């Protein structure tokens, strides 16, 4: 990355951070939280779920657990990364501007990390301590994701029909049935049986 590139990147970051800070505290908060989530999301998109749950549902209460689950469901029917759930949360907390800010904030920090680390790719890849620490963090996310599954289960699995849908969907995913097919069939089925 050139010096000019850095200046541009820093300028964009400042605008993204400071402009909402001046006008709406909620948007600034949203911004900071999603940047934090992004920087802690070792192990990809699913790692962000416990992080977002903790900050957005438990701490700030911008969305309820039910809405968060629904937002993740919508993230499954949209293409691209699951982290796009940040757009959903941003929309609820701050309308269209919130949706835009949430989306930028949840991708921007890792974008900077990735592009600025470019000269060191090889060294990172070969560094054993880094690989080991990342594995530890992945294991921790596994534990956190289990807790999230428990929370979600208590909210979403309320009778034998929901348990049945869950079991069938899991079996299908486990047998490597296409995710979009599972969600599509599940959606049609849900409208018929609930």
């Amino acid at each position, binding site marked *: 990355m*050139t010096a000019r590139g850095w200046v541009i990147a820093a300028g964009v970051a400042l605008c993204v951070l400071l402009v909402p800070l001046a006008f709406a505290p909620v948007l600034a908060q949203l911004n900071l939280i999603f940047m934090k989530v*992004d*920087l*802690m999301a*070792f192990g*990809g*998109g699913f790692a962000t*779920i416990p992080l977002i749950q*903790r900050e957005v549902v438990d701490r700030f209460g911008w969305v309820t657990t039910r809405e968060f689950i629904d*937002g993740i*469901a*919508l*993230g*499954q029917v*949209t*293409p*691209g*990364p699951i*982290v*796009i759930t940040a757009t*959903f949360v941003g*929309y609820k907390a701050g309308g269209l501007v919130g*949706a*835009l800010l949430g989306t930028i904030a949840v*991708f921007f920090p*890792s*974008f900077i*990390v*990735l*592009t600025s*680390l470019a000269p060191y790719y090889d060294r*990172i*890849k070969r560094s054993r301590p880094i*690989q080991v620490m*990342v*594995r*530890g*963090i*992945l*294991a*921790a996310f*596994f*534990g956190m*994701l*289990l*807790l999230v*599954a428990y929370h*979600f289960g208590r909210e979403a*699995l309320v009778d034998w029909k*929901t348990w049945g*849908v*869950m079991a069938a969907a*899991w079996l299908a995913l486990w047998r490597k049935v*296409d995710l979009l097919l*599972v*969600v599509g069939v*599940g959606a049609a089925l*849900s*409208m018929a049986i*609930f």
Partner: protein
Amino acid sequence: MLVLSLPTLFLAFLRLGATAYGGPAMMAYLRQECVGRRQWLTEQDFKDGMALCHTIPGATMMQMATYMGYRLRQLPGAVVAAVGFVLPAFLLMTGLSAAYFAFGELPLVPALFHGLGAIVVAIIFNACVFLTRTAVHGWPGLLLVALAFTALALRVNLLLVLLGAALLALVLFRGDPAPAPTRKGAGR
């Protein structure tokens, strides 16, 4: 290395962003499109990128798009690829969110999400299964899983949990052989 114009790159990633569905399956799709069909990157470059994107934080698919953009056209390429890749999802999600919060009370909608919620639980369980394969080997891994579960349940600061896990891993995984170079799954 072949030279692509920035608009071409943008349109290509816009198309990829609109057609990449299905969680971990997306990585295979991206590889097939960018390595197989268009030959933008070599197989080895793609593998290196995946190893890197699994090591640093952030959404893996998005990181891969950025990485490829960077490899092809440096920083401008990275910006163009990242924006193009996320734009379709962003527009669709904004529309769906608006519809959800406007029409969430209509008759069929709660029934729909009743079922979708159960499917989300299944998807998360499935992600757990993937993570077990990649991250948890033997009792040291299980110990970390249990500790993190407890810490989150007790509402310990998340950054502390992650730092603790990283440092504990240095001790617990000390005797392990080097981790496998390609780690699949949980890639969304």
